[in-house]
């Protein structure tokens, strides 16, 4: 019976079975009909020692190839300061449950309050929840919020410049709820204000979702959008890349009612797709429509400042089918990640890191345009990601670079290549990518 995670000795088993009045472990299951009992052996490998498990994962790891990453498309290769994994591994954080027992959970409640404060500072909004699964589901929850806040409108407009992965998640949730998603035309890589106005005027719109930077890396000018939306009683929602908000005009400044997006860009490793963290912020007016957990300040019976999960009357464990959402968790540990990251980067550091990516991307773009093989897909301002058009085979180009250990962006159309640069990319790596691309072009 003995195994490293099971403390039961043979004597323990004997005396415990005796105490409960069972003559064997099997007797505990006498209620279970025989035809649903599983009596066989699972079709699984035999137990492995710690060393063997480690060796197996290392061997699987060798089947992967780390590439110097110039890809983004929603997931960015930022640097993680050494402090973060160390603090996240503290088992008081790592192995605790949702902070329902406030008296023994002030650590978690405290950092969530800090997280909420930092996300509102970054987005320029009033309120943040305790975090969501990721950026795509945060957008879907934002959409549901808008529809819940609206009186009878069940239509949500989404700009064609919003990342298709985000739109797919919204559509997936919309299908079940009878929400209609209508796409707003794009014009030269940006949301068409004319089409935006036209579709809003048609009526029945609960909210509008736009992106910043958008799916092409373009920083759009949303002057006037919020006013038009508000004049027609629709909420204005923005899906943003968190790190870029260190520099860019905030959703709050653009007049947004809801800001959402992914916090992965705040130093979270790409780890093949997750876990990341979604953020969801809103105006004070929409507080009661907010899904998910929220931490608030209060005091304890000793007169100390304390933090606690609050406004739980919105949530599924109280409201069941009438809840604002079915969400029952947050990405708490990833919210801690982001909170420590923002504490370390601070007011200046976050801006400087973002500008390194900005300058790196503009340098790379200039260098690639100079090769004469590319042209800019759109003549619009971009942040740390941009799209180029090329009449050569992009798949073959990317494969050539991958063989040399470089991930040359993401292919976003037949002739379109999207590249991203973060503070993690050195000038040497950037120059090397340019020469690899040149080498490839010269082989044609």
């Amino acid at each position, binding site marked *: 019976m003995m195994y490293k995670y099971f403390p039961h000795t043979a004597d323990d088993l004997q005396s415990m079975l005796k105490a409960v009045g069972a003559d064997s472990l099997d007797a505990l299951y006498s209620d279970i009909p025989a035809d649903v009992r599983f009596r066989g052996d699972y079709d699984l490998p035999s137990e492995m020692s710690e060393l063997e498990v480690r060796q197996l*994962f290392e061997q699987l790891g060798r089947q992967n190839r780390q590439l110097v990453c110039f890809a983004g498309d929603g997931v960015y290769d930022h640097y993680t300061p050494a*402090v973060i994994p160390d603090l996240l591994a503290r088992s008081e954080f790592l192995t605790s449950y949702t902070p329902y027992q406030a008296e023994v959970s002030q650590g978690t409640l405290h950092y969530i309050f800090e997280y909420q404060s930092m996300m509102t500072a970054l987005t320029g909004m009033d309120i943040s929840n305790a975090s969501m699964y990721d950026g795509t589901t945060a957008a879907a929850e934002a959409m549901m919020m808008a529809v819940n806040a609206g009186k009878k409108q069940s239509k949500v407009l989404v700009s064609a410049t919003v990342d298709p992965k985000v739109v797919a998640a919204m559509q997936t949730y919309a299908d079940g709820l*009878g929400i209609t998603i209508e796409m707003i035309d794009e014009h030269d890589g940006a949301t068409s204000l004319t089409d935006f106005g036209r579709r809003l005027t048609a009526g029945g719109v609960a909210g509008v979702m736009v992106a910043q930077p958008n799916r092409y890396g373009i920083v759009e000018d949303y002057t006037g959008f919020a006013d038009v939306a508000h004049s027609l009683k629709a909420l204005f929602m923005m899906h943003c890349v968190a790190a870029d908000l260190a520099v860019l005009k905030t959703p709050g400044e653009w007049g947004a009612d809801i800001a959402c997006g992914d916090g992965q860009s705040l130093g979270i490793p790409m780890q093949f797709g997750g876990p990341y963290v979604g953020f969801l912020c809103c105006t004070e007016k929409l507080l009661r429509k907010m899904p998910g957990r929220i931490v608030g300040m209060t005091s304890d019976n000793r007169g100390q400042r304390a933090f606690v999960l609050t406004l739980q009357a919105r949530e599924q464990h109280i409201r069941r089918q009438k809840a604002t959402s079915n969400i029952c968790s947050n990405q708490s540990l990833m919210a801690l990640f982001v909170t420590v990251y923002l504490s370390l980067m601070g007011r200046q550091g976050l801006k400087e890191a973002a500008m*390194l990516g900005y300058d790196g991307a503009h340098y790379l773009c200039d260098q690639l345009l100079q090769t004469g093989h590319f042209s800019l897909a759109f003549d619009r301002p971009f942040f740390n990601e941009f799209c180029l058009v090329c009449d050569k085979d992009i798949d073959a180009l990317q494969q050539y670079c991958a063989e040399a250990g470089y991930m040359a962006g993401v292919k976003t159309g037949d002739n379109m290549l999207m590249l991203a640069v973060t503070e993690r990319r050195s000038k040497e790596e950037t120059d090397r990518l340019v020469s690899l691309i040149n080498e490839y072009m010269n082989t044609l």
Partner: protein
Amino acid sequence: MNNRLYGNLIFELSREGRRGCSLPKNRFGHHDIPQKLCRKHDAALPECDEPTVVRHYTNLSSNNFGVDNGFYPLGSCTMKYNPKLNEELSRLPQFQHLHPQQPAATVAGAQAVCTLLKRSLCALTGMDAFTLKPYAGAHGELTGLMTIRAWHKANGDEGRRTKVIVPDSAHGTNPASAAVCGYDIIEVKSTAEGLVDFAHLQTIIDEHGKEIAAMMMTNPNTLGLFERRIPEIAELVHGCGALMYYDGANLNPMLGVCRPGDMGFDVMHINLHKTFSTPHGGGGPGSGPVGVKARLKDCLPQHVSPYQGNFAVLMRAYAYILSLGREHIKKVGPLATLNANYVKEQLKDVYELPIDGWCMHEFVFDGLKDKSSGVTTMDVAKRLLDYGYHAPTIYFPLLFHEAMMIEPTENESKETLDAFIGVMRRIAGEANAEPETVKTAPHLTPIGRVDDVQAAKHPVLTYQQLLLNETN
């Protein structure tokens, strides 16, 4: 754990000009950025040096209680040990730095982890296919219900199958997920024995059979009781053309005992952060893979998340399965079940056990047997904190006023359980001898009981609001 509160906020440690990071020099040259696209003021983030940040969060962590600190009998949450090896493996650089859209040839190892994990989950549950995309249990429920909707749609039956049956003892996420998926909920009652009321279910199906899309169940249920009539329930539900959904929140005691796929379930989710030992992380990230029978394979939705869900969580779960192997994983259920019955049997003379009999991994008391002192379940839970235990899940399930749901996992030793039993009995004694001590507990934790009403009535949800409050 601290017995005195460390109460600073990182913002209160901030001083203008301090830095906690160092960045490479900018060698790309300066590029102008259009000012009208930039924010007017810097984000009001703290400015701290690195040692201050490290001490702050280290001290904060000491205000917390985790599984590594002590016994955590939180019912329905399966707070088992989170192996350290799995943490280390999940951070291997060969996996950690993979962009999710890298060419397939460069991510063969990561893909293999996903394939092997899916195969293991099929073996353990009797399902035929899994998707790893859902991020959490509730997300898995939603994914499973979308699968069910797609199945009915493929059969030309979507329009009229608008209802989902949920037991009154179900987790709150069941009805909430069904509602988010656009379904109406029909609640089926529990019998006095705490099981699904078969006669009531029969009535529901007679009346609404053609409108039912699915029945959601967890087995064992939230009272920790095995639903013995599951074969008949499944037959009845299938008979009206609906599907059976298994909420995997209570899967742990079934390891080595039963497989949902053999009990008549068509769709299920698994909480990897419960049964498969990945850490709860203070409320996430979790992972909620969804499994289906072969005929439903093509109905799994593609867009519940863009990539392979919470991949680093999947790695931990797979490491757990490999470590235990087929020999030890089948002991998990029986040992967890023995532990729960052991605690129940030795406390049921002082705590009210509304439904006697074998429990599975957990059981529910309805408060103290002797309620004359006015000591409530809340009071007992808070007093447990003074003795160095986490509280059980309280006031759930909703079937009993003073519900107290206790789940000791297979990782707890007889000594730990004996000590806990001793403390629970002691608290029952205190309830009579010195009820005020219990009613005002906890006394030895960093903070005392909090004012929930104040928090909800005057919400202060950010540091900015806190400052405004102070100036007013």
